[in-house]
């Protein structure tokens, strides 16, 4: 069970990274290098900027996927913690 959850966690993290990279590329193109670097430094800023410009840049589906992955990853992370606490590492 723990292995399955860990594997799911890795897959979701890779998906999250892919979404983040796509939004950061948009950020570089739209707002220039400085804001792009800020986006790399602060994933939360990229996430917020992506949602605030989702309709204009037509990335609404991408942001929905990223948000779903973020929520799922939180649930999986908490489940792994609970599983480890109950049954040990």
């Amino acid at each position: 069970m723990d292995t399955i959850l860990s594997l799911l966690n890795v897959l979701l993290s890779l998906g999250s990274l892919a979404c983040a990279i796509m939004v950061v590329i948009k950020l570089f193109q739209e707002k220039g290098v400085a804001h792009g670097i800020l986006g790399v430094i602060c994933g939360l800023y990229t996430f917020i900027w992506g949602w605030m410009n989702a309709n204009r840049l037509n990335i609404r589906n991408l942001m929905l996927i990223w948000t779903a992955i973020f929520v799922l990853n939180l649930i999986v992370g908490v489940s792994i913690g609970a599983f480890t606490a109950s049954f040990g590492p």
Partner: protein
Amino acid sequence: MRQQIKLDTPILAALLGERKMSVAITLALGAHGAALALGWPGFDCPLRAATGVPCPGCGLSRAGQAMLQGQWATMAQYHLFAPFFAIAFILIAVSLTLPARLHGQFVGAVARFERQTRLVAITLILLVMYWLVRLLWLRESFVNLIVSS
């Protein structure tokens, strides 16, 4: 299209000028900080979560927490640039409390300061260099500190 870094381009002022963005950043960072303080999971760095390699901003939240508790050595261990981000966060929060006319003047003043000093752009470049130094020469301790805690 080739883009250049123009050091005198206002970065923080551009953020302050967008009220909706400022509100969203304040709320999101507040929620993230509160979650971490309570021991709950916050917004995880996508790069670190997927690859195990910390991004240039990794450690800033924990450095900010340590700074708020007056633990300066711990703050420096996690991220030396936390005070700059704390000041930026305070400026964003302050700008939200100002009425429209004062808000415009405030944003203008920050933009002038940025154009004259280039402080924000230089800080971002130094931060990336700081990250590269930690990643290339202090890799083991850096990765262990950020990933294990």
